[in-house]
C-alpha cells in the first residue's frame, strides 16, 4: 500500500463516480493500478512509464479515448516539492509526467466544451475552443518522450508556444455566451432563462475550475524547469512563493490598473493601498494579482462612469484597498464609490453571461469603460466569476457588497497555504475545490435526471455537425 492514499489531491478530479471507483481500485490493488495519487517524486516516473507502455499499445491519437481516462491528481505538497530546486533527473521526470498528463486533461476540457447544453456546444466559437484543446493534446501526445536535455527543451518550447492560443479560450466562450443571450431576444421566459443560466453556470464553473488547476500545473512546471536557462526566482517553487507579500502584489496590480485606466479612459481615480507590507504568506502571487486586477478594473471603471453620469464636476473619489493579514487568512478589500448596483441584481454579476453585462455596477451603457478591461477573461465578461473561482480554488471566497447609489465593497479572502513548505495545509485549503472535486458533476447529473434526460440530450445537432 502506498502511503498517503487518503490524502486530498490537487487538480480537478474526474467525475465523482470514476474517482470513487479509482479510489476503490487503489485500495484493493495498489500494484496494478496506474492512476495513483503520487506519494513521492520518484513515483512520477513509475506513472509515466506505466502509462506510456499502455499508451504505446494504442499509439494513435484518439481524443475520445483520452477523454475517458481519469486525470491524475497531484497534491500541493508534491507540486511544491518536485519544483523546488529540481535536479536534472527530477526535471526529466516532471517533463515526462506532464507530457503524459496534459493530453488527458486537454481531452477532458474538450469533452466538457462539446457537452455544453442549450445549443452552446453547437456554437462555432465553442467548437473552435474545443478544437484548440484537441490540437494541443495531439501535439503533445505525438511529441517524443523527453529523455534528455535536448528533447526536453523541445518539449518545453512546444508547451510554451501553445499557451497563447489557450489563453484565448475564455474570450471565445464569453462571445458565444453573449451571442446566445442576444439570440434569445426578449421572448425568452425569464424563469426558464434563469434555470438554463444556472445549468450553464454549473457546467462552466466545473470547466474553469479544472482549467485553473491545469494552468497551475503548466505554469508551475514551466517556471520550475529552468529550461530557458534562467535561474528559477529565489523564494519560488514553480509559481508558489514561500514569502509572498500580498501588499506588494496588490500594489503592482494597482499601479498597472492606474496606467491602463488612465490610458483608456483618460482619467483614473487615485488608488490607495493600505496594509502591512512586511506580512507574507506562502501563496501563488499570480492568483492574487489576477483577483486584485479584476476587482480594481471594475472599481476604477465604475467610479469614472458613475461620476461622469452625474455631471463629473470635482475630483474622482479614490478607490481604497486594504490588505489585512490574519492568522488563518488574508483579506483584500477593494472599496469604491462607483455607484454600486441594486441588491436584487447581485446574483447576475456572478453568472457566466458573456460580455457586456448591461447595467452592471450602475452603468447604463458601458462605452469607454469597455475599452479598459483588457485581460482575455474580463473582455469576455467573465472576469468576476473567474476571480471568484481563483479565490475558491484554495478554499477562500470573494464577496461583493454593493451599496446602491454609493459604491461597492469587494472582499477577497484567501487562505494561507500552510507554512513555507506547504506541508501543513489548513483545513479550509484541504477541503477546497482545488483539493477535492466539488460536486458540480453530481449537481448537473441531478438536474438532468430530474427531468428524465440524459446529459447528451441537449446537444442539439452538435454531434451531427462533428460528423
Amino acid at each position, binding site marked *: 500500500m502506498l502511503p498517503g492514499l487518503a490524502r486530498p489531491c490537487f487538480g480537478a478530479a474526474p467525475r465523482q463516480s470514476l474517482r470513487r471507483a479509482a479510489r476503490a481500485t487503489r485500495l484493493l490493488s495498489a500494484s496494478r493500478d496506474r492512476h495513483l495519487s503520487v506519494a513521492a517524486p520518484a513515483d512520477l516516473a513509475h506513472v509515466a512509464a506505466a502509462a506510456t507502455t499502455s499508451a504505446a499499445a494504442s499509439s494513435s491519437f484518439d481524443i475520445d479515448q483520452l477523454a475517458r481516462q481519469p486525470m491524475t491528481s497531484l497534491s500541493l505538497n508534491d507540486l511544491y516539492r518536485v519544483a523546488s530546486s529540481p535536479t536534472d533527473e527530477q526535471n526529466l521526470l516532471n517533463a515526462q509526467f506532464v507530457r503524459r498528463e496534459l493530453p488527458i486533461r486537454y481531452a477532458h476540457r474538450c469533452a466538457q466544451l462539446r457537452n455544453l447544453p442549450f445549443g452552446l456546444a453547437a456554437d462555432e466559437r465553442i467548437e473552435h475552443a474545443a478544437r484548440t484543446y484537441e490540437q494541443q493534446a495531439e501535439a503533445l501526445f505525438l511529441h517524443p518522450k523527453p529523455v534528455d536535455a535536448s528533447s526536453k527543451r523541445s518539449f518545453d518550447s512546444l508547451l510554451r508556444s501553445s499557451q497563447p492560443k489557450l489563453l484565448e479560450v475564455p474570450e471565445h466562450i464569453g462571445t458565444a455566451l453573449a451571442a446566445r443571450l442576444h439570440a434569445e431576444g426578449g421572448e425568452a421566459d425569464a424563469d426558464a432563462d434563469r434555470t438554463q443560466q444556472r445549468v450553464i453556470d454549473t457546467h462552466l464553473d466545473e470547466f474553469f475550475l479544472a482549467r485553473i488547476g491545469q494552468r497551475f500545473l503548466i505554469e508551475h512546471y514551466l517556471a520550475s524547469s529552468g529550461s530557458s536557462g534562467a535561474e528559477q526566482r529565489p523564494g519560488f517553487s514553480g509559481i508558489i512563493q514561500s514569502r509572498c507579500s500580498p501588499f506588494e502584489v496588490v500594489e503592482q496590480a494597482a499601479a498597472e490598473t492606474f496606467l491602463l485606466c488612465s490610458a483608456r479612459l483618460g482619467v483614473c481615480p487615485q488608488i490607495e493601498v493600505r*496594509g502591512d507590507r512586511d506580512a507574507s504568506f506562502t501563496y501563488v502571487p499570480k492568483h492574487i494579482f489576477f483577483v486584485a486586477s479584476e476587482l480594481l478594473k471594475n472599481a476604477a471603471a465604475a467610479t469614472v462612469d458613475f461620476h461622469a453620469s452625474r455631471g463629473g464636476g470635482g475630483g474622482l473619489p479614490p478607490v481604497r484597498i*486594504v490588505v*489585512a*493579514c*490574519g*492568522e*488563518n*487568512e488574508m*483579506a483584500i*478589500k477593494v472599496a469604491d464609490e462607483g455607484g*454600486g448596483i*441594486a*441588491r*436584487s441584481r447581485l446574483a447576475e454579476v456572478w453568472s457566466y453571461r458573456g460580455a457586456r453585462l448591461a447595467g452592471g455596477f450602475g452603468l447604463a451603457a458601458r462605452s469607454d469603460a469597455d475599452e479598459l478591461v483588457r485581460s482575455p477573461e474580463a473582455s469576455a465578461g467573465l472576469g468576476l466569476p473567474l476571480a471568484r473561482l481563483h479565490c475558491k480554488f484554495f478554499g477562500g471566497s470573494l*464577496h461583493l*457588497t*454593493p*451599496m*446602491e*447609489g*454609493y*459604491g461597492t*465593497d469587494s*472582499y477577497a479572502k484567501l487562505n494561507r497555504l500552510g507554512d513555507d513548505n506547504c506541508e501543513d495545509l489548513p483545513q479550509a485549503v484541504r477541503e477546497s475545490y482545488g483539493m477535492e472535486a466539488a460536486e458540480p458533476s453530481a449537481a448537473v447529473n441531478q438536474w438532468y435526471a430530474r427531468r428524465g434526460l440524459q446529459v447528451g440530450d441537449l446537444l442539439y445537432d452538435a454531434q451531427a455537425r462533428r460528423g
Partner: protein
Amino acid sequence: MTRRQRTLIQIATFLKRELPVRLARRVIELKQLPEGLDAMPSVIRVREWYEQSFVEIRRSKKPVDAEGEAEFCELLHNIYQRHAPTLVTMARGVHELRQKLRAERGEKYDLSDAAPIHGFLDSFYMSRIGIRILIGQYLELHHETQPEGYVGLINRSTSPAFIAEQAMADATYLCERTHGDAPEVLIEGATGCTFTYIPSHLYYCLFELLKNSLRAVCETHGVDGEMPPIKVVIASGEQNEDVVIKVSDEGGGIPRSHMPRIFSYLFTTATPAFDSGSSIFSSAGDHGTDSPLAGLGYGLPISRTYARYFGGDLNIMSMEGYGTDAFLHLSRLGNRSEPLP
C-alpha cells in the same frame, strides 16, 4: 362616530381575529421544542403567557362601538406589557437547558451546535416582531395626535442620519462609562435621505452595531492610544431599492473561528446577568441598556431579524487583523410582505 373611530374599530376587529391565530401557533411550537427546551421552567412561563393572552382575546367582547374598542385597547395594552420580557425569559430558558445538558453530557457540551434550536429561535423571534408590530401600531394609533410624519409606529420621513446620531450618542455614552473614552464616529453619505420605516427598529440595529464597533476599537487600540474613527456611511438614491447603512471600524476584526457563530442565539462566553440572582424584568422591555440581556450576544441576531422582517438584511464582513464592516440593508419600497412561516 368619527372616521378615525371607525378605523380603530376595524383594526380592532382584525386584530381580534388575527392575533389568536398567531398566538396559538406560538403555543403549539413552544410545546414541541427540540432537545427538551420545552420542559424548561422559563420556557413554560413564556408559553403560559401566550396561552393566557390567547384566551383573553378570544373571550373578549367583539369591539363594535367606541366603548368596546376602548376596552379592547386596554386589553391589548396589558398583553403588550405582559410579553415585554419574552426575549430575556427565553434566553433564560436556553441557559437553563445549557446547564442541564452540561450536567448530563459533560462540561464541554456546546449548545451552539444544536441547529434545530437555533432555527426555532429565529422563527420565534421573527413572529414575535410581527405580533408586536401589529399590537404596537394599533396602540400608537390610539393617540389623538400623531407626531409629525408618523402613522403609528411608522415614520414616513425616517432619517437614517438622525437616528444614527442618536444611536451614536447613546453608544458613545455607554462606551465612555465602560472604557473611559470612546472613538469618534463619523456619519457620511446621503445624510439628507429620508424614507418610510419604523424608527425604533433602525435605532436598535444601529445602536447594537455601534456598540460592537466602539468596544472592538477600544479593546484593540486601547483608550490611551490613537483610536481610528468609526465610519457610518448612508447610501441611498432616488430610484434605489434599498437604503444601505454601513458601519465600518478598524477594531481588529472577528477571528475566523467565531464567524459562523456571530448570528447565533446560543453562542455566548458571558455569564448572563440573570444568573447572579437578580430577577429584574425591566419594563422598558428587553432593549434597555441595563437589560439583563446585555452581554448575551443577542444584538446581532435580533438586529438581523429586524432587518429581514421587511425584506432587508444584515451582513457582516470581517477582515481578520484589521476590522469589521457591517452592512444594514433596508428595503425602501414598502411592498414586501411579512415573512410569515
